[in-house]
């Protein structure tokens, strides 16, 4: 998760914008039109977006599905454990007799919320640190980047395992918060943000370094604009594309990390379902109920690959080098 395995590839082999403009009857295309043309040309990204929208809708409709089927996703019913698919349980039941489909949908809510929240949190912190380092430079830059390098070099998973085992009561958090069911969601988001901001920080720093020598930034400086305004109004909007791409690409990695931690029993805590903790018992159940091991893993895989394709498509569509060719 520290280094995203998505190097920025140049836009090789793509039809040049001049050619696209010619196709459009010589009329110049707006930036937004160019974006959509390029994005729609990436068929895997479009399919991924459709899949993710469907998945989000289905997850959001989990209570509805529960009501329609007349089942309770949290109800333990040992007499009906490990049932094959039926009208009431379209995907059967798990080892405690709970409906697999409903739990998968609730697990989808958790995975998507954790993935998006942690990616956004990482993007905000990474952008802040990156723009500060890039704009002010000097010692602050050296210090922040050394710190970033240090965090990137760490073995993240063992560190997260220790962090996830910390007793929140000893940190002085109020008892009712610690005991609440959703605490494991907040906690995993915070933990992932703690180690996840590095990619965006490095990207934004690099982009800021090249932005701050541009004429419009210099002009703003000459006119006496305060540093905060220059960073927020003149630099940030211009580095937003790489942030969007990196953030989208990071969601997949975050969902993987969440599922690993939940699988190991240190992430989302039962009875709250997540795709990771639904697999915790899968290894013992391989013989009796192998399908229980298939569904959650398959959903993680499809969701993660969809976010990766979506990010790849956005990268192609937002590639600044290609837009300059216009």
């Amino acid at each position, binding site marked *: 998760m520290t280094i995203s395995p998505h190097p920025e590839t140049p836009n090789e082999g793509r039809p040049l914008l001049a050619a696209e403009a010619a196709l459009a009857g010589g009329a110049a295309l707006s930036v937004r039109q160019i974006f959509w043309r390029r994005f729609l040309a990436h068929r895997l990204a479009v399919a991924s977006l459709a899949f993710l929208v469907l998945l989000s809708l289905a997850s959001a409709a989990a209570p509805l599905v529960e009501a329609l089927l007349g089942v309770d996703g949290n109800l333990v019913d040992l007499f009906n454990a490990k049932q094959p698919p039926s009208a009431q349980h379209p995907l059967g039941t798990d080892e405690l007799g709970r409906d697999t489909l409903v739990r998968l949908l609730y697990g989808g809510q958790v995975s998507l919320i954790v993935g998006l929240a942690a990616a956004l949190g990482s993007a905000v912190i990474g952008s802040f640190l990156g723009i500060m380092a890039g704009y002010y430079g000097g010692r602050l830059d050296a210090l922040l980047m050394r710190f970033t390098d240090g965090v990137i*070099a760490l073995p993240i998973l063992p560190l997260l395992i220790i962090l996830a085992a910390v007793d929140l009561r000893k940190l002085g958090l109020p008892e009712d918060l610690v005991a609440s069911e959703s605490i494991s969601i907040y906690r995993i988001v915070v933990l992932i943000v703690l180690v996840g901001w590095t990619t965006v920080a490095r990207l934004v720093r690099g982009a800021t370094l090249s932005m701050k020598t541009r004429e419009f930034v210099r002009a703003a400086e000459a006119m006496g604009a305060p540093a905060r305004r220059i960073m927020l109004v003149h630099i940030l909007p211009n580095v937003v594309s790489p942030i969007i791409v990196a953030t989208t690409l990071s969601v997949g990695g975050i969902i993987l990390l969440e599922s690993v931690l939940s699988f190991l029993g240190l992430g989302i805590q039962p009875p709250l379902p997540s795709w990771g903790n639904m697999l915790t018992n899968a290894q013992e159940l*391989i013989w009796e109920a192998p399908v229980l091991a298939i569904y959650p893993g398959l959903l993680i895989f499809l969701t993660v690959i969809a976010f990766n394709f979506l990010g790849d498509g956005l990268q192609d569509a937002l590639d600044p080098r290609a837009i300059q060719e216009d």
Partner: protein
Amino acid sequence: MLAYLARRLAESFLVLAIMSFVIFALLGLMPGDPIDVMIFSDPEMTPEDAARLRALYGLDRPIAERYLTWLGSALQGDFGYSRLYNRPTLDILLPRLGNTVVLMGLSLFLALIIALPAGIYAATRPQSLTDHGINLIAFAGISIPPFWLAILLIILFAVVLGWLPAGGMGDGQSFWSDLRFLVLPVLALTIATVGGVIRFMRAAAIEALRQDFVRTARAKGLSGRQIVIGHVLRNAMIPVATILALQMGNLFSGALITETIFAYLGMGKTIYDSVVGNDYNVALVGLLLATLTTLLANLLADLAYTWLDPRISYQ
């Protein structure tokens, strides 16, 4: 060069020192301390006994003081005892570090053997069917949950086909029977690693292919193979070397998952077991050893730069 090396080593040890304090403090925040564990196993113990024991072991003192005490004995080579195994921490960890190095080394080697040709092949034929196919495989490798992949491998090779053991370690009797236990963990970690390396390799090779010297080489009539081997490969290796070093932490995380599922006695599994089992000394030293390994790998990659690209020199 020597001065650079010395500075980098000093930095690495600084990171290690900071990490040791952070982990030490975090372990102090974990539920239950060693005395709680004793109370749990001995119902006769009174709160006064517990307090006396805490004072005896120094657990009532402030964290900084306890850390300095730990650091003092650590610097003399005393890392304490493992609570789960009742043996000195290093006796437990060092053989397992060796096992992890074997697992990670083999997987990384295999991933490179697959990814270098695949990435370069894809780069020389951008947007072709092969390129798309390789890209799809790479994305699948990045996106598959490593623990699920391991479970699928067990279902296929151990449960259905019965070719390989589902987990555990060899008994050390014969090299070949021990090797059978390594196959599935190495396979799982290789698949989890190879996708990212292919993507980096492809991007680096595309970048190298558009350099002037490639055009020159083509103009003077070199074959595609000569250009790729003589000009592209070496230049593409420079960025890939950095990425690989930075991936060491990720590779270790992957090893932790793989070891845990296959019950392979490596560092990752040991760290996980020790955190879950409140074995503080092992958790602390294990994480520090893992950090040290990734830091040294980073350093090695920087040194590999100078070998790959003589234009870079360190002062």
